[in-house]
């Protein structure tokens, strides 16, 4: 990746009481880059994402946005910077239609009343540029399939013109074709020059769309790989800690002694 990262985490740590959830974590996301964040359950993926999204303020370390350090103390700060998060539970209102959900909390107004025409127009444009297929933008969310809800949730994150989009397990509950649709959408986000942080347990998805894989293990960085030049097994062993054994530690010690 060329140029400075849009978002960079340097030495980020986070504690919850006696639990050290994150220790000295580094992460960089560039514009037009898909960074997959992988790790076993409890590795700290969700905590890391929540620190970026402003749900949990960090204890130590620096978050840099376009090169300058920023404080993200609450979700509003993250949104104001241009970080949009799509959580696993999509948080859509079942009773509102697609347009209503896309613009929930930032409705377009005209003479103090809702400008449904402008909102519907922008919703259609947005869905068209992302090639999202929805039966109608006026259908309540309750009438959509799981995959359609997922793409609506992602599209909703894009209404505020963010620079970084965080997707938490976007394909976890989806079928084959719907997963493909969501992955297509992730690629289109990259084409639009957005930085994407993709949390996933599915290596096939990661290999399919990610540029870089950042592995977390027990709250620490455990390697960052270029997807194109890394094998499946290498990533898996980084996740499970299979590389962290007596043999590798001995090699590391020898290498350090040699310096």
């Amino acid at each position: 990746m060329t140029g400075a990262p849009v978002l960079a985490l340097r030495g980020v740590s986070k504690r919850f009481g006696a639990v050290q959830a994150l220790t000295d974590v580094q992460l960089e996301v560039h514009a037009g880059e898909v960074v997959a964040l992988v790790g076993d359950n409890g590795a700290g993926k969700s905590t890391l994402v929540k620190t970026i999204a402003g749900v949990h303020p960090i204890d130590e370390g620096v978050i840099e946005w376009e090169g300058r350090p920023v404080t993200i103390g609450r979700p509003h700060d993250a949104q104001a910077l241009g970080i949009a998060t799509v959580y696993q539970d999509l948080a859509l209102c079942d009773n509102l239609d697609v347009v209503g959900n896309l613009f929930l909390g930032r409705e377009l107004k005209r003479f103090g009343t809702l400008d449904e025409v402008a909102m519907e127009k922008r919703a259609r444009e947005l869905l068209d540029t992302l090639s999202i297929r929805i039966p109608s933008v006026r259908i309540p969310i309750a009438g959509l399939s799981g995959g359609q809800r997922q793409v609506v949730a992602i599209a909703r994150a894009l209404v505020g013109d963010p620079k970084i989009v965080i997707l938490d397990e976007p394909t976890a509950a989806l079928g084959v074709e719907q997963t493909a649709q969501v992955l297509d959408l992730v690629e289109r986000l990259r084409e639009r020059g957005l930085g994407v942080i993709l949390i996933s347990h599915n290596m096939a998805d990661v290999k399919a769309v990610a540029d870089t894989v950042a592995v977390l293990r027990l709250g620490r960085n455990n390697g960052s790989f270029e997807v194109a030049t890394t094998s499946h097994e290498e990533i898996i062993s980084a996740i499970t800690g299979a590389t962290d054994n007596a043999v590798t530690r001995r090699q590391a010690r020898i290498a350090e002694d040699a310096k």
Partner: protein
Amino acid sequence: MSTETPTTPTPPAVDPRLLVRKEGVAGYLDEFGRKLRSGELGSLPVVVGLIIIAAIFQWKTGSFLNADNLTNITKWIAGPGLIATGVVFVLLLGEIDLSLGSVAGVTAALSSVLAVRQGVNEWLAVLIGILAAIAMGAVHGFFFSKIGVPALLVTLAGMLAWSGLQDFTIGKLGTVNNLNDGVIANLDTYFMGDGDIVWAWLAAILAIALFAAGQLIDARRRAAAGLPARPIAEIALRTGVLAVVVLVVAYMLNQDRGLPLPLVLFVGIVAIGDFVLRRTGYGRQIFAVGGGIEAARRAGINVAWVRTSVYMISAGLAGFGGLFIASQQGSADKSLGGGNVLMSAIAAAVIGGTSLFGGRGKLWSALLGILVLQSITTGLDMVHAQQAIQYMITGAVLLAAVVLDSISRRTQKSSGRG
């Protein structure tokens, strides 16, 4: 669906499975039929029910559809109807308010006692009464949304406490008669322009013009923005139906005493409330909180404030309704707002088509529902049925409405629109 539509080239992203509506009135009827089959009944069952009720009582009494009887019904629905309107607001949140009957009672008692016994200016007394009602709603809202007590229990406590306050306010004498020709007395008895027929016609024409203009402007803006717009034929059809209804009502009212003030205030409040719910950001927030609290919270909506304010609105409406009830019965007393008043209001909201589970419903359902209940009550009075029979029939109608709602929801689920 598969027929050619040469006028509108389909954009590339359209899903081939989705239903495209045909042009013109044929398409409208087509979609109407499809909606019915898939369980989107809307207000159709209530309207059909109203027609059946009217037909039965007209057949039994021969005078149910007389102008004076219909005028009386439009006057009597204002009080309970306003309480039902408040209920709809709360139901849209997916919550319940059991205190609205007591709130109506306290408001009537407070305003009457201030005006009659304390000699306060009656306008001021009415204002204080309604502000007190809104304050009671704020108390419910605070304990519910800030402290986290279930709404059912907060308002149950409110129901008991406020009816105690009502007793206390009224005092030992028990009844406060309305001031002769005063503000409260006139709420029920006044006719616009003292019965001048111009008012009913004017109101009817205004309603039709506003509706048609709104629809036309909307259609033109949508067309200009390249969005599918309602065809002119359909707008004409809708406006025509509305015009027939409104003009018939105006004609009937003018056969009797003219346009009653309570009808104007009730319908006006429902219309304004409906506009707020459907066309403003605040209304959208109410629907969002009713449809998914977590989603609403993450969208930056102040859920606690939305909840509190809705309880304030519903209590304010109930208080105003209480004044209408006092006006109609000639006095405020200890039992005003007690008995079946609250349950009828909840029944009316549900009969009109508002969901008990939040996020789905229209304010107009309060009007339709209370019309059904009042028609039944009035009709049974006319055939000299016992009160016991009235309750049983009202219960049966409520059950029928809820059954219909449940069945239609199941059909909607199976056709993918749940």
